């Protein structure tokens, strides 16, 4: 059974990589299988891990307050019926309102205030100087109410260079991530799938 699973995974991997040569029906089939299985898996997990323990079981035990979120959930599903699809907007507005109320301040605190605080550094090392200089010049670049000319223009230009360095680092990390995924698949094909074929049994010490 395990070998069957390995073979299915290997053939689907090869089917997806066949796109690198050119678009083809085998690739399309694998893509559709992936999307379908992902959606099915997500639905099953949500039912088993969320609907049953957090809604259905407590409801059966007498926690009738849960009927309210239950009704909101059913209202959300009305989207699939075009004529009464507007009902889902009530649930949606509840989610948006609740999320904003619960997390707006926390979001600002974690992603703005704490980050600004982290730039209040003593100018006692090259790293600190670079960080403060980079933040200030970067902010100047995003100030569009004054024409980027003279000293202001030069500062904005320096800000662009800092941004370019950041984009470069980000691109480098993206390359690393994509290569990592390729390595992961190659490790699977070379050391798990190929050794199931008698000719390649020695690969990976297996």
């Amino acid at each position, binding site marked *: 059974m395990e070998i069957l699973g390995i073979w299915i995974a290997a053939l689907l991997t090869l089917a997806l990589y066949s796109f690198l040569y050119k678009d083809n029906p085998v690739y399309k089939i694998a893509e559709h299988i992936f999307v379908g299985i992902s959606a099915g898996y997500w639905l099953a997990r949500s039912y088993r*891990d969320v609907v049953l323990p957090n809604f259905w079981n407590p409801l059966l035990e007498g926690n009738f307050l849960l009927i309210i979120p239950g009704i909101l959930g059913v209202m959300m599903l009305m989207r699939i019926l075009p004529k009464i699809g507007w009902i889902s907007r009530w649930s949606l507005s509840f989610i948006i309102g609740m999320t904003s109320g619960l997390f707006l301040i926390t979001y600002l605190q974690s992603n703005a205030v704490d980050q600004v605080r982290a730039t209040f550094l003593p100018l006692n090392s090259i790293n600190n100087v670079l960080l403060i200089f980079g933040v200030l010049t970067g902010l100047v670049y995003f100030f569009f109410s004054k024409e980027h000319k003279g000293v202001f223009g030069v500062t904005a230009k320096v800000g662009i260079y800092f941004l370019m360095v950041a984009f470069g680092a980000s691109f480098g990390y993206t390359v690393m991530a994509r290569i990592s995924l390729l390595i992961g698949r190659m490790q699977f094909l070379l050391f798990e799938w190929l050794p199931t074929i008698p000719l390649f049994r020695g690969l990976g010490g297996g």
Partner: protein
Amino acid sequence: MNLDRRVIFLFIALAVILPLLRPLGLPVLPSKPVQKMYDVIEDLPDGSRVLLSFDYGSSTMPELYPMSLALLHHCFKRNFKVITMALWPEGATFAEQALKEVAEEYGKTYGEDYVHLGFKSGGLVVISAMGENIPETFPQDYQGKMVKEIPVMNGVQNFQDIDLIFDLSAGDPGIPAWVMIAQGRHQKVLGGGCTAVSAPQYFAYLQSGQLVGLLGGMKGAAEYEVLVEKKGTATAGMDAQSMAHSLIILLILLANIAFFSQKMKKEKR
């Protein structure tokens, strides 16, 4: 000058496959953010409670699964009580698989030394609810047992009963959500492991002290494997990673040389 992109794909494939078959043994040196994470975990007292959230799916498995294993090795080696959970559906399966792979090696028993709470959808809302009451947010574990009856969960009411939280994050919900609620609202010690793509974004949290350590991508996983002396697939992939990067740098240089030489030729004409 035109080069069929499939030729580049072929070279990249070779740069990855050959070092996997014939490893070069290039050194893997732990970086500061990874060492910091290791030190924080190492400094926790025996029996500490660690919460690991598996917030990733199969598309990022090569980067985050080795990280999960290395962390579990460290936690079990230090005799911590481990609580796992997932905000991504597939993460729950990876947590179960990783626990099965590592716990036995250290003679750890399910329910006594570790527990897997499973998946819960809702991201920020789930984390927020856990800050108030963990057994109410996760009434049952992954196997359907009542969480209140599991010995390792005795005395665990909310985040205040957890000594360290570590998020294995592939996106949203992930590290930003944990930083906002667990660190921002509850001042918990928080570490993170993420895909290489998102690492530059999360270094800001590290610099500000909101994260105590950060493992970025397969490289971060490899560095942690070296620190816990459990070399796995991440370390094995580092030679291939280095070769592929060298090839890409070479291709960028060649492309630039070709571009500028053509430009100069045109100008001469």
